[in-house]
């Protein structure tokens, strides 16, 4: 994934990240689905002027060795991401529902596999 909200690279004329310059192609995040039925997986990012070119570039950059049969390109600025500071609160509801895991229940051995 890309784009932390951080200060630009100190020693250069960088614009704050996420704000592309008028002359810089936007950043696209690339997702690829391989041959074996798994879901699309994030593989990296690239720059392209539009979605069509993003997919063409993704073919050259990320599938030179048959890594995929389907490509998704999403403009990086369109991705909403959870923030690491919320980690605790965000996942708390999952932590206190241990009964969602099958191991919560003791099934006697005589019952057999379940």
């Amino acid at each position, binding site marked *: *994934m*890309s*784009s*932390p*909200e*951080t*200060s*630009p*690279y*100190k020693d*250069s*004329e*960088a*614009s704050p*990240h996420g704000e*592309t*310059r008028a*002359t*810089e*192609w936007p*950043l696209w995040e690339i997702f690829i689905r391989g041959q074996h039925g798994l879901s699309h997986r994030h593989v*990296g*990012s*690239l*720059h392209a*002027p*539009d979605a069509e*070119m993003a997919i063409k570039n993704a073919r*050259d*950059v990320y599938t*030179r*060795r048959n890594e995929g049969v389907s490509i998704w390109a999403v403009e990086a600025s369109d991705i909403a*991401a959870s*923030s*690491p500071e919320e980690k605790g609160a965000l996942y708390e509801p999952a932590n206190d529902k241990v009964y969602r895991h099958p191991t919560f229940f003791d099934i006697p051995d005589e019952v057999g596999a379940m």
Partner: protein
Amino acid sequence: MYAQMIKSTGQGVKSLDEMEPDERAFQERINAGGKIEPKDWMPEGYRKNLIRQIGQHAHSEIVGQLPEGNWITRAPTLERKAILLAKVQDEAGHGLYLYCAAETLGVTRDDLTRDLLSGKMKYSSIFNYPTLTWADMGAVGWLVDGAAIMNQVPLQRTSYGPYARAMVRICKEESFHQRQGFDIMMKMANGTEAQRKMAQDALNRFWGPALMMFGPSDADSVHSAQSMAWKIKMNSNDELRQKFVDQTAPQAEYLGLTIPDKTCKLNAETGHYDFAQPDWDEFFDVLRGNGPCNTERLEARNKAWDDGRWVREGLLAHAAKKRSAKLAAE
């Protein structure tokens, strides 16, 4: 290596006790083998160091296309030409994976490019040497990619997630690079007398520069100690260089070629090859911009950037036009 002489804060490594809570949690996570991801808290020095290191690595992949690109049109057969083309295209890909990793640290692609083109950021010294004959394509794949692999394999375990993932992709592709180079060397070394001489001459010219790729000894460097504590450097320069010599010397012997170093032989006591240090004055001179091809390489990159400008701007204008046409139709 592809990133040479990276300087850190220079203040030496802090102990866990000397750190503020944020930094301590960060360091403990690294010590435990955890990964740092783009949005996580990180010390400013870690971020800056990584931008320099990954940026320099990316620039090396990109500039590294030039010495090999030099022979694409003159490859001896159509097959060799197709293989070399695919190899050079991979290097472009490596540069792109790495720029994309660097961008997650809050630097833009154009900033990195601009700093390369102005000469402010460096690339590996090895790419400032010329490729004079077809045998050099063999020597580059065998020795230069071989040396790069030594450093890149451990970096797959580096602490910064996006960097580690880029390295995994790169390492998958590198062994093709080294093997195609060795294959060229085998052909040349077993060919006519003239071809064998060419192969020997290529080894003679690339041996020292390949050893220099690992950088001077950093046994006492505070910068390296910090980078190692942060796990953005996994081995010392000397350690990797020794590994490289140990791996390469027997391969040279197999080819029937002679390493241009009379002291290079297996030491029965240590189990490692002894070898002479390369010419470090030459190394520093190349870093200062005085290698045989520094000017030519930077000129080629600047020309590519300038000549490509109308394409970058034209495609952007076309995309904007298409977008507004689509909006109007809705």
